[in-house]
């Protein structure tokens, strides 16, 4: 590797790690209790059996997704990405933003520091917007693990198809109509 590695973003630690778990547990307790009161114990048992089928489908995928997440986090060559998303990169910058965004592992607490770092290391704003939009709507890990589990392959793929042009349009709109010189306030510290 020729260029020095950019600093690794902080390990994936959402600021409030317990919040989602507490919310999910509360939702389970409240909705379960309501079902019991309104529809009786038979309905609750029937739903739990159906949930078990869903769980069998989701949990192995989740385990694979978590493994892939760890591998990608240590593999993604951030210096290479920043170098090739520069202001002269043209279509290549948009294309790299699209692919890197779709493959990028992790939640917003990982991706936003990377986007900020790309800007700081000289990436062009349109390419960075494509990167963030692509991560938002085309994220492959979320697609394969979560969306396919809960929506099924067909509906999940249709949604992906409908969203496919979005990151490219977004990047080009920013590049053509809202370029950096019109917005001098971007931090390049």
């Amino acid at each position, binding site marked *: 590797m020729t260029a020095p590695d950019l600093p690794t973003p902080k390990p994936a630690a959402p600021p409030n790690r317990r919040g989602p778990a507490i919310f999910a547990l509360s939702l389970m307790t409240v909705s379960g209790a309501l079902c019991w009161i309104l529809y009786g114990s038979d309905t609750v048992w029937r739903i739990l059996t159906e949930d078990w089928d869903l769980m069998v489908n989701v949990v192995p995928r989740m385990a694979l997704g978590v*493994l892939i997440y760890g*591998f990608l986090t240590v*593999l993604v060559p951030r210096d290479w990405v920043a170098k090739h998303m520069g202001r002269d990169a043209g279509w290549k910058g948009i294309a790299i933003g699209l692919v890197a965004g779709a493959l990028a592992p992790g939640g917003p607490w990982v991706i936003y*520091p990377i986007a900020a770092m790309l800007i700081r290391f000289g990436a062009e704003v349109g390419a960075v*917007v494509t990167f963030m939009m692509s991560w938002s709507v085309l*994220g492959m890990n979320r697609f*394969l693990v979560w969306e396919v589990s809960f929506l099924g392959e067909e*509906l999940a793929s249709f949604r992906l198809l*409908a*969203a496919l042009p979005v990151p490219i349009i977004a990047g080009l709109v920013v590049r053509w109509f809202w370029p950096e010189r019109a917005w001098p306030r971007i931090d390049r510290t």
Partner: protein
Amino acid sequence: MTLSTIILIAAAIGLAIAVWVHPDRKLSEALGISKRQAIFLIPVIIPAIISAGFVAQLLPSEEIGRWVGAESGFAGAMIAAAFGALMPTGPMLILPVVAALLSANAGDAQMMALLNAWMMMNVQRLLLYDIPLAGGSLTMRRFTLGLVLTPVAAVLGLAIVG
């Protein structure tokens, strides 16, 4: 075994080999990151999946069918999109909820619009992550684009699903 499962398994194996042969990267480092992520996810996903069934039972399916059902068209997609933008949750909660909505008569294209809006312009993420980490200027561009592109994706979605 479905195609997506095969892709996931192939990706996991391929990436594991890539990390293993990479001179500067350690497998143990990657597995440590995976372990932390799993410890975070397990207490969320299991209650979320159980909740999905209960929530589907409790949702008023007639009302949902009327507002965001398959017949509600573009207007229904925009109502669903507004919910998506405002719903403060991550994928491990919103996808079970969408699965519940789908089994309570919500339309396919409308739920696609909900998810697209949640991905592009979720308000909670905007306040917690976009503005502090990416700055107001970039956030402003991204959100404005989300406002324009959510309807575009909804029209495409309606065209695909019908």
